[in-house]
């Protein structure tokens, strides 16, 4: 089997919630050994974000947590405790990368900033991914994905157009975008270390990464003072574009007719009159005819009918239908992994599909503190007495302290 690019790379993962764990899930799938570190007192809130009344060990049985933390090892360490901090500083020399997405001041408050880490591992790569970065007047703002989307400029660009209301994306969009960029930053820092022998401190601001996905809007703003115009689902570059209801409950088809010719071809396929009055109202006419023609059509059939004819169409796949999509199945995109507390479910592989190395999810998310012994005794060589002391002091644990609702 071909070697994965990050085999042999070890990452100390202090990230929580979604942005950071999304990044390290990708890095793990690329071959890195990821050690997720949580304090028994301050653990990843994602574990219990979704209430599971009556479930034993809910912190180990969340599909949300377990989807984004597979292929990782779990080590508990209270970094705010002197013994926990000391154990962490024993671990860092064994690691290539430390990654965190705390609020900007937390790592320094723990006295675990870059200069401290560099003393124990001179070529360490530290990746911080605070919402607004480690510097600048906004560094103390608390930012989660939806907030980041507002502060990046993106939310101002989304809207139906007839009500002036900006819209959020239906996921906490800033998180995975920052996660993809942070994974890229780790790889880039590894390239740099390979070439120079030196580590680095990556200060990634989640807001800035998201702003870089709307670059052309900054061109329009800086050259012409433009502010975003909401166009709903339309696009002035297309002859017509929209989203239309199909048969069934909440079934929709997105369609772009790039040219008049594509409109005429789509009209022929769907049995629509292609003649248009001519003028600014044409798009409304097209929308009305498409809505009529598609209302009784099966969305998958309509999608394939149009797409096979070379017309850009796409089902608005919902969060169940996407797991049944025949194309993703043929691509072996979903993987079911056994988990000791849960029945299997379809988990996504990384989008970084290296065709030859063929990265593949290997193991379910770890149970809380599952790898304490392996890492503390096996990797760091701590003796029984020391591990007992860590346990007695609450620095490590097999269960979170006071687990409530995240």
């Amino acid at each position, binding site marked *: 089997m071909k070697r994965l690019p990050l085999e042999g790379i070890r990452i100390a993962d202090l990230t929580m919630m979604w942005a950071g764990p999304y990044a390290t899930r990708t890095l793990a799938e690329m071959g890195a050994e990821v050690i997720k570190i949580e304090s028994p007192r301050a653990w990843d809130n994602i574990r219990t974000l979704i209430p599971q009344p009556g479930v034993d060990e809910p912190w180990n049985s969340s599909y949300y947590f377990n989807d984004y933390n597979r292929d990782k090892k779990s080590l508990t360490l209270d970094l705010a405790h002197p013994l926990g901090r000391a154990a962490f500083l024993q671990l860092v020399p064994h690691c290539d990368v430390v990654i965190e997405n705390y609020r900007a001041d937390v790592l320094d408050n723990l006295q675990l900033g870059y200069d401290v880490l560099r003393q124990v591992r001179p070529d360490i790569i530290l990746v911080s991914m605070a919402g607004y970065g480690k510097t600048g007047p906004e560094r103390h703002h608390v930012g989660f994905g939806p907030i980041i989307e507002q502060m990046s400029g993106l939310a101002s660009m989304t809207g139906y157009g007839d009500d002036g209301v900006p*819209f959020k994306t239906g996921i906490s969009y800033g998180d995975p975008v920052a996660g993809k960029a942070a994974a890229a930053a780790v790889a880039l820092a590894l390239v740099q270390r390979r070439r120079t022998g030196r580590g680095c401190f990556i200060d990634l601001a989640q807001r800035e990464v998201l702003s870089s996905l709307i670059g052309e809007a900054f061109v329009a703003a800086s050259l012409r003072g433009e502010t975003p115009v909401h166009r709903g689902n339309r696009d002035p570059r297309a002859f017509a574009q929209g989203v239309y209801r199909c048969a069934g409950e909440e079934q929709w088809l997105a369609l772009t007719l790039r040219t008049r010719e594509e409109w005429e071809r789509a009209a022929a396929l769907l049995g629509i009159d292609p003649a248009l009055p001519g003028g600014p109202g044409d798009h409304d006419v097209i929308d009305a005819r498409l809505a009529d023609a598609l209302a009784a059509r099966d969305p998958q059939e309509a999608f394939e009918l149009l797409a096979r004819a070379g017309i850009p169409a796409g089902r608005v796949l919902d969060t169940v239908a996407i797991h049944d999509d025949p194309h993703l199945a043929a691509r072996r995109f979903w993987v079911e992994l056994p988990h000791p507390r849960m029945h299997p479910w379809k988990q996504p592989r990384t989008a970084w599909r290296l065709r030859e190395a063929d990265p593949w999810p290997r193991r379910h998310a770890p149970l809380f503190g599952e790898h304490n012994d392996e890492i503390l005794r096996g990797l760091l060589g701590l003796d029984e007495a020391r591990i007992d002391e860590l346990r007695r002091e609450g620095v490590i644990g097999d269960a979170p302290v006071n687990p409530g609702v995240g």
Partner: protein
Amino acid sequence: MEAPTADPFPLDAVRVLEIGGGIPAAFAARWLAGFGADVVRVDPETEGLTPDEAVYLLPGKRRVQASSPGDLLALARAADIIIEDGPPGALAARGLDPAALRASRPELVIVSITPYGQDGPYASFPATNITAFAMGGIMSLTGMYQREPLVTGGSQALYLGGLDAAGAAITAYFGALISGEGDWVDISLQESMAGMLELYGPRGAYEGAVSIRSGNHVRAVWGLYPCADGYAGVCALERQVPALFALLGDPELDEPRFRDPLERPNHDDELQAKLYAWFGERTKAELLELGVRHRVPIGAVVTPRELLDNPSLRERGFFDTVETPDGTARIPGRPFLGLPWRPGRLNEPVPAADILATWSTRP
């Protein structure tokens, strides 16, 4: 704490060939160019980028016009990384069969970005930003329940493919540095999004329950509201709810129906009404200040134009400037601090021979 300025660019002397010319390949290659790679873009016969997109995505790249098959092959053979976003088979049709290129140069990294990937029943289907966004699942969650699903602004599906392509290209290149073996990376826009559906994707897979778009309010304490001078939002985790309630200062919020996290969803409309009133009386600046002071995650909807004057972005040196025939544009620059980045300028196309003169031999 930044890296010493003596450091070279991390991708210095790395040769990147960008073929295709849409946003995905151009965005991926822009990051590589900024971090020092020598990016050569083969311009498409018909430019796929708008003028504004070109101002953002082309700085720092050398350009050649669609060149002869012989020139193209010579460029491909000299490259360390090829990034392309043509349909499956298009590269091979131009004489650049990825498998053959990989066989002749094992360290070569090829990254292909397509709507659906290189194989599978939809592989040959065309797509645009909105149709890709729909097939990736995010669109089903975006917009108001009472209306049609809504596409997020800009060209997010295309940019996400480019973002994944950049990360995968660098990772595969790192692998090639270690082992001498590159790879052919197959980025699908659909997969780029299908794996980032927050809790809703795993919920659909695990429980078989569809999550429906909920407009601007996942919950009252996780939503977007009109304020005195625009729109602002809050996104409070359970541990931050007490601080948010304290800010509102409404004694009713001490009652169990609002305090109890399991009870609160049954009174979400009532809570939303209180938040509408509270946000409505305050400006964006006031709300942001209250958020940071009381550690409540509060944001405000700002436009790109407002961000051009943002003090944080200014202090952190986020924007690059680029000279255009229409004046000086300011564009997002380095995606993160800590590794050397170089702003680029817009270049005119040159003959392929000019590139090959420097690329024909390895340094």
